[in-house]
C-alpha cells in the first residue's frame, strides 16, 4: 500500500519554463551533448533498442543518461550508466539517421573515457589493449619478414594514384587472419608494407582510452607513408578521424580509386557464386562508404543484398568478447537473413566481423562461408589466371 503523502515525485525545478543550465562535470564536450533534441528518429535503427525495446538502451536514452551524468543528476557509480555504456555496440547506426547531426561516436568515446577510466575498464579489454601494444605477440614479425619492403611508396601505383600508399597490418588480422593481408598484396603488389607497425588505437578509443587511441593513430600515421590502406573498416574510421579523411583508404575505396579492374569470376558448383555483403559499421556509418565493395563483388559474382546488410553483426570490436550473449543476440537476425538469401559467401570488410560471421555461421551449420573482400577478389583473379592459357 502506498502512502500518498510520501510521494517522492520530483517535478523538476523548472517543469514548465526554461530549466536552469545544469552545473556540468566536464566529462562531455557540451556542444556535442546539446545537439540532441530527443526526437527519437534514431530509435528504430539501434540494434540494442531492438533487442530490449527499452528507452535506456536506445541512442536517445543513452544521450539522456550522459546528460544526467554530466549534470550530476545521476551519481557517478550509477549501475544503469555502467550497464548502458557497455551494452552500446558503438556501431554508430544512430548517427546516419540523426537529422540534428549528433556525433554519437564521439560522445560514446567521452563517456567510456570516464566510465571505464583506469581499473574500471573491463579486465578483458585491458588485456587486449596490452596485447596489441606489443606487436611481437601478434606474430607481426613473421608477416613483416615476408612482405616488408622497409620503405613505403617506392613503386608507382597504377591507375593514376599520385601518391605512395602503404598497407596497414591490423592487429586482429595479424593475429588471426594474416591471409587477408597476403591477399591484398596479391591484388596490389605495389603496396608498401613497412615494419614496426603498431596498433591504430581504435581499440583503445572504443574502450575508454581515447588519449591513447589518438596517440597510437598519430604514431602509425608517422610510420606509414602516403595513403594508409586498411582492410578493417573500424581502423579506417578511427584513423580518418585523427589523421584526416584523405590519409586513409579502406581496401575497396583504394581499389576503386586506383582503377582496379576485378578479374575473373567466383564459381560454385559450376555456377556463378551468390555473394552477400556485411557492411562494416564504421565504414558505412562514419565514413559513408557503401557502394565500392558492392560493385567489386558484383563484378566477380552474383551480388545479393541482404535486407539487413547495414546492421551491426555484433562483433563491434571487443564487444563479442566482453558481452558474448548480447553479441550473439545482435547477430541472430543477420544469420537468419543469410540463410534466407541462400548465398555461398558473405563478404566482410573488417576482421572482427569476419570472425563473428565465421563463428556464427559455423554454429548455425550454415552452408554459407564468410570471407574477406580481398580473399574473394583473389579467388576470382586466380580463376581467371587458370583459365587464360586456354
Amino acid at each position: 500500500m502506498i502512502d500518498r503523502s510520501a510521494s517522492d515525485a520530483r517535478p523538476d525545478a523548472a517543469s514548465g519554463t526554461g530549466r536552469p543550465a545544469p552545473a556540468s562535470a566536464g566529462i562531455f564536450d557540451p556542444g556535442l551533448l546539446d545537439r540532441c533534441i530527443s526526437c527519437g528518429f534514431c530509435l528504430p535503427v539501434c540494434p540494442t533498442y531492438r533487442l530490449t525495446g527499452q528507452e535506456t538502451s536506445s541512442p536517445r536514452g543513452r544521450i539522456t543518461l550522459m546528460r544526467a551524468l554530466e549534470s550530476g543528476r545521476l551519481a557517478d557509480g550509477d549501475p544503469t550508466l555502467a550497464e548502458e555504456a557497455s551494452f552500446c555496440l558503438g556501431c554508430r547506426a544512430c548517427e546516419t539517421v540523426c537529422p540534428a547531426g549528433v556525433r554519437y561516436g564521439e560522445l560514446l568515446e567521452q563517456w567510456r573515457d570516464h566510465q571505464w577510466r583506469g581499473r574500471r575498464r573491463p579486465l578483458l579489454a585491458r588485456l587486449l589493449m596490452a596485447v596489441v601494444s606489443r606487436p611481437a605477440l601478434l606474430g607481426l614479425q613473421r608477416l613483416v619478414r615476408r612482405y616488408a619492403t622497409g620503405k613505403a611508396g617506392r613503386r608507382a601505383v597504377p591507375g593514376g594514384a599520385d601518391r605512395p600508399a602503404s598497407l596497414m597490418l591490423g592487429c586482429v588480422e595479424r593475429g588471426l587472419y594474416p591471409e587477408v593481408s597476403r591477399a591484398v598484396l596479391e591484388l596490389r603488389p605495389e603496396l608498401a608494407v613497412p615494419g614496426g607497425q603498431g596498433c591504430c588505437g581504435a581499440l583503445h578509443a572504443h574502450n575508454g582510452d581515447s588519449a591513447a587511441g589518438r596517440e597510437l593513430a598519430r604514431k602509425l600515421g608517422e610510420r606509414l607513408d602516403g595513403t594508409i590502406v586498411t582492410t578493417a573498416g573500424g581502423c579506417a574510421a578511427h584513423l580518418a578521424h585523427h589523421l584526416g579523411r584523405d590519409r586513409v583508404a579502406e581496401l575497396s575505396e583504394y581499389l576503386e580509386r586506383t582503377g582496379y579492374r576485378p578479374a575473373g569470376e567466383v564459381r560454385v558448383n559450376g555456377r556463378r557464386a551468390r555473394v552477400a555483403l556485411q557492411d562494416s559499421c564504421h565504414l558505412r556509418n562514419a565514413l559513408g562508404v557503401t557502394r565500392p565493395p558492392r560493385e567489386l563483388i558484383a563484378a566477380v559474382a552474383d551480388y545479393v543484398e541482404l535486407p539487413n546488410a547495414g546492421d551491426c553483426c555484433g562483433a563491434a570490436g571487443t564487444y563479442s568478447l566482453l558481452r558474448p550473449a548480447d553479441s550473439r543476440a545482435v547477430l541472430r537476425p543477420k544469420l537468419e537473413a543469410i540463410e534466407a538469401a541462400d548465398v555461398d559467401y558473405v563478404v566482410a570488410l573488417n576482421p572482427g566481423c569476419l570472425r563473428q560471421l565465421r563463428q556464427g555461421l559455423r554454429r548455425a551449420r550454415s552452408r554459407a562461408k564468410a570471407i574477406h573482400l580481398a580473399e574473394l577478389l583473389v579467388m576470382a583473379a586466380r580463376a581467371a589466371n587458370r583459365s587464360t592459357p586456354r
Partner: protein
Amino acid sequence: MNMRGDLARDLAEIVGERHVRVDDGALAAHARDATPLFEATPQAVVYPGSTAEVAEILRYATANRVPVVPRGGGSNLCAAAVPLRGGIVMVLTRLNRILEISREELLARVQPGVTTATLAAAAAEQGLLYAPDPGSHTVSTIGGNIATCAGGLRGLKYGVTRNYVLGLEAVLPTGEIIRTGGRLWKDVAGYDLTRLLTGSEGTLAVITEATVALLPKPKESGTGVAYFASLADASRAVTAVIAAGIVPATLEFLDHKCIAAVEEFAKLGLRLDAGALLLFGDDGEADAIARNLDRIGAICTEIGALEVTLAEDVARADALLAARRCSLPALSRLGPLTVLEDVTVPRHRLAEMVDRIDEIADRYELRIATFGHAGDGNLHPTCVLDPHDHAAIERCHKAFAEIFSAAIALDGTITGEHGVGAAKLPYLEERLGTDQVALLGRIKRAFDPAGILNPGKLGS
C-alpha cells in the same frame, strides 16, 4: 519502505520483474519527451504486455492514487508524455503487433505500440494505404498518433488521424475495458467516444487496440518544388492553388532558414538563395497527377515563383519528402534549443499569419524559422535558441504567447496537430473560453474520478 520499492514490487507482480524499471537511469530517461524545457521524474516505468495487464495497473493506480502517464514513441512536441506529477510511466511499445489487415474491409486492427511507418509498410504490402503520415512516422506509435490526433504530410487531401479511426479498445483509469466503434463505416449508437478519445492525449483512457481505415494504394504519385522570394509569396500560392479547386495530397513549405538546415543534412541540391520552398505533390492516376502538378506549377509561376521543377522520379520525390520530415531536427543545427509551435489559421490567412510571425520575431529579437503543412494552414514557427541564454528563452515564451493570440485573432488555433499537453495548457482557455474548459474538466472527472491518468494536462 519508500514508495519506489513498493511500486516496483507491486508492478512486478502484475507484469513480471523484467518489465518494471525503477532505477534512476530509467527514470531519468522517461522524464521527458521530444518537447524541450519540460522535465519531471517518474517513480517507475512499466511495460505492460496485454490489455489485462494495463487494466490491472490502472486499477492499482486508482486504488492507490498513483499518477499514470501513457507513452508511445515519446515523440510528441507538447510535453504530453512528461510525468508532471511523478508516478508511473506506462510504455505501450511491447504491444506492437499488427493483428489483422483486411483487404475486403479496407481496415487494419493493431496494437497501440505499432509504429506508424510499420503499419504503413504492412498496408502497402497488401496494396493498401494508411494515410496519416506524421513527420515522425518511424518513431511515433499508432496509440500516440490517436491520442494526439496526429496530422501529416498528406493532410490536405486525406485528412488527419481522426478520419481513420473506426474503433478503439481502451482501458478506463478505473480498470474497465471498453470497446468503442468497430469495423463499421456507419454507427451512431451512443456518444462518439471514438472521436472523444482521439486527441485525448492520454488523459481519459489508455488505448490498447485500434481499428483503422485503409484506402486502396494510389497507383502513382508525383512531386514538385517551387521556390519563392518569401514565405508570404509561397502562402499566396497555396491560397491560389486551393481557390483554383485543386486539392493535392501535399502542400508543404519551408522558409530559407529551414531550407539551409535541411540541405546541410540531406544534401539534395536545394536552392539556398530563395526565401521559401513550396513542396507540392499528388497521387492517383498518372494523367490526373500530371495535370494537377502542371496547374499548380503554373499558378506558382503566376504568383511570382523564382523557379518550378518537377521531381524526375520516385526516388527524388521520396528524398524531398524525407527532407521535409526532418525539418525540425535539422533546424537544431542552427542552435541546440528549438522551441516549436503549431499554430493553424484558415488557409486564406496564411500570408497574414506569416507576416505577423516575422514582425513578432523581429520585435523580440529572436531567430524564428518557419515550416509547415501549408495546405492545412498549419505553421510550425520554430525558435532557435542557445539553451543557456535565459533572457532569450524568456523572450521566446512572450513571443509565442503573442503568436497564439495573433492566430486566434485570425480565426485560427493554438495547436493544429501537436496537441495541448503541458506546453499549451496555459493558453487553452484563450482558445476555448471558460465554459468549454470547465466542460472538459467534467468530462475528465467522469472518466477518471481519481484524477490519476496523465494529471496536469487536458481536463486537469
